[in-house]
């Protein structure tokens, strides 16, 4: 049998097609599937412009985001929650409610590194009014826990409320290991038992800048409900881990405290502080965080959504809806 030149060429080309096809095809499918976490084309910087003045697409019912500005943080908070449909929308009778403020630093609230205590007190009062069985307010602080919880003013501010407990958790007996189904770098971690056993979770972060995470709003606040977070800086990607934890801890309401914001120098300060006297409330954790970017020139020059890695990862993990320009954002000054 003789093999002609043509035969050889045929065999080689056919073989090449068969062997090469999968890699070529897979490249097509990859292009169709936005798995690249940093894929920039999905997020448009212009989405953040033109926020103002867009008519609300939904005529009735509570808005997507409530932004209240006023002198008294407690009044602002109550107005924001009322606008979101009232606390009864989130808290049913007999609920175990968790409010997770930021109590991470032994600084007075004027330093803008921790949540304004009056905001938390207003939330606790409303939750109790709505029939909460008890309200648990806690953090796993960065600074020495028992000092931080006193200096940040939370313990004092919440005094006198029945069934309301302000505490810090450091010991591993207050955490339980869970698996994070949607986690990419954080498959398993130990989370505060109070979060796991809560009927209603309310996130009450303070809006501030952050050295390694760029900004610290709602999603970043969940680092205070996790026991082991040093590995987030040394073994796994911090930004991905923040997005992972946000897929697992699902607050019914996020109240972003922008009474005063640490524009840069965060999260521990000292840094320039701007008195915004605002409260941002929403049910969508991602929408609240993304709206938070518009509050100040974070880090000095301001950030866009694509500048914040953990926002990017959160969008890809569908933690919430990031298209706030299409949302019903109601701004009221009280």
């Amino acid at each position, binding site marked *: 049998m003789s093999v002609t030149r043509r035969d050889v060429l045929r065999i080689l080309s056919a073989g090449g097609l068969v062997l090469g096809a999968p890699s070529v095809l897979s490249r097509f499918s990859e292009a169709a599937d936005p798995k690249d976490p940093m894929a920039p084309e999905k997020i448009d910087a212009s989405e953040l412009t033109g926020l103002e003045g867009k008519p609300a697409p939904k005529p009735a019912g509570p808005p997507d985001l409530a932004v209240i500005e006023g002198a008294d943080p407690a009044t602002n908070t109550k107005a924001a929650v009322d606008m979101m449909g009232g606390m009864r929308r989130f808290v049913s009778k007999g609920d175990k409610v968790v409010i997770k403020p930021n109590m991470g630093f*032994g*600084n007075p609230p004027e330093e803008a590194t921790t949540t304004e205590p009056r905001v938390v007190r207003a939330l606790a009062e409303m939750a109790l009014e709505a029939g909460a069985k*008890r309200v*648990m307010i*806690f953090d796993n602080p*960065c*600074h*020495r826990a*028992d*000092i931080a919880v*006193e*200096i940040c003013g939370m313990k004092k501010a919440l005094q006198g409320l029945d*069934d309301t*407990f302000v*505490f810090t*958790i*450091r*010991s591993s*007996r*207050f955490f339980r290991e869970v698996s994070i189904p949607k986690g990419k770098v954080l498959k398993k971690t130990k989370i505060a038992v109070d979060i796991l056993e809560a009927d209603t979770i309310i996130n009450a972060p303070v809006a501030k800048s*952050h*050295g*390694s*995470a760029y900004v610290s709003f709602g999603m970043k606040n969940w680092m205070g409900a996790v026991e082991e977070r*040093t*590995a987030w*800086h*040394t073994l796994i*990607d*911090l*930004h991905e881990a923040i997005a992972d934890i946000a897929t697992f801890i699902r607050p019914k309401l996020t109240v972003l405290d922008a009474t005063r914001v640490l*524009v*840069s*120098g*965060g*999260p*521990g*300060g*000292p*840094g*320039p*502080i*701007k008195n915004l006297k605002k409260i941002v409330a929403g049910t969508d954790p991602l929408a609240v965080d993304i709206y938070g970017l518009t509050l100040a*020139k974070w880090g*000095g020059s301001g950030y866009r959504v694509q500048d914040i*890695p953990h926002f990017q990862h959160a969008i890809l993990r569908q933690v919430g809806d990031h298209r706030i320009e299409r949302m019903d954002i109601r701004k009221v000054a009280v």
Partner: protein
Amino acid sequence: MTLRRGFQVAFLLLFVWLLFRAGWPPSAFRVEDGFLRIDPLIGLQAWLASRQWVQAAGIALFMLGLALILGRFFCGWICPFGTLLDVSDRLWHGKAVRKRRWLNDARRLRWLKTAFLLVIAVAALFGQGLAYLLDPICWTTRLFTYAVWPVAAIVGNLGLEGLRPVFEWLGWMGLARADLSQPVFGVYGVLTVFFFTFVFWLGRYQKRFWCRNLCPLGALYGLFARFAIFRRTVGEACDGDGRCHRVCPTGAILSKAERKTDMAECIQCGDCAPACHLNVTRFEPAALSDRSPSSTDLDRRRVLFSVGGGAFLSAWLAFEPGRKLLIDNALRPPGALPETEFLATCVRCGQCVKVCPTHCLQPGGLISGMSAFLSPVAVMRLGPCDPNCNACGGVCPTGAIRHLELSEKPNARIGNAVLDRERCVVWEQGRACLVCDENCPYGAISWKADGADRRPYVDETRCNGCGQCEAACPVPGSAAIRVHVAGQVRLSKGPYPPLPPAERNESGSGYPYF
């Protein structure tokens, strides 16, 4: 229970209560170290050794003045160490007293405690503090701090955890989430337990063996108690039956027939009065002529030996080989006096270690030489020195750590943070981490962007050396940013030079930014 037992139990409970409540926030009256503050031995030593008038010396003189009236009342009625000995002596009570002639002889070893006092006094004149080795209040403070407290915290937390379901069921969530801070002192707790076991064991040979033969504080009180106004008297009717002699816990009643009492040994316990079948024993103001000659055999040889020993020990400690390398090798709490003065004044009682809420203060080993043994060192990796806390200076009985106002504390620098770029996860691995910057309360750490990396830098002019960065650094093992003694500011008096005002730069951008 006699009145004295009541006092003893009350004072022991008070001692323990004061010690255990010492922490953050400090009490307004600063009485947590009350027992140490009224200890004349450490007060006088601090005065002599540091050549500075200290408040403690005034209280010491007052207490010795009291001894001129009431004798060694402190030993019998107040001293928590003595109360513990009364308890432990009961363990041997009823069992045959061990016979070992030289250990049983009530008068044979009595001179030792005065010799120890002499050694301490001579060392103090040479500027060395040795009282901590034998002072009973220091030892009791250390026992409860280094040995009892860590165990109590373990037991307490186990109890809290065990009862947690009950608390939760009852809705007592405050208790359900309560957590006792867990200190760890390792070998120093063990050391203290060894010491107390040994002293308790000596009780097999003589009741209150420690108080009779070893305690330099008792010896100091004894020097003045010999002239006490309020003393033991025995009526003419005494028949020399000797019951008082048998019952006396310190051998102050020298023999059966002896009606006079060695008031340097008598601890005013009054146990001899009810023991007297003729009821002629009294404790009342009496003439000095009533006293017995001292029963302490402190002859000239022993005095010379003690003085020489004290001088030799202080010389050894002062010229300790390699001391130049060792000195200042440990971080001291903020407000600590300059090192030499600090070591002369510090009595190693451990009160500052107890009060430190972050457990940053630890008993030091031999890191700065033998003369610094057991003095407090700040171990930042265990916990930082919190800027909201000035508790250690508030409870230092001798003023070795100055009591600083919180506004002045930033200026009393402990040291400087030094960044080890080779180990830093940002510098070396490009990771997202600025935990040191996050935690720094003084704005001494800033970052500069290099590409996507935000790299930390230390501004040592603003660093207080508090160690928040070192404590929080996520690098395993020793931190990639550590506090070193270079840059510490320690003054014996006067205000500290202030830190430059926090200029809020890059990661803090010029203030006010807007």
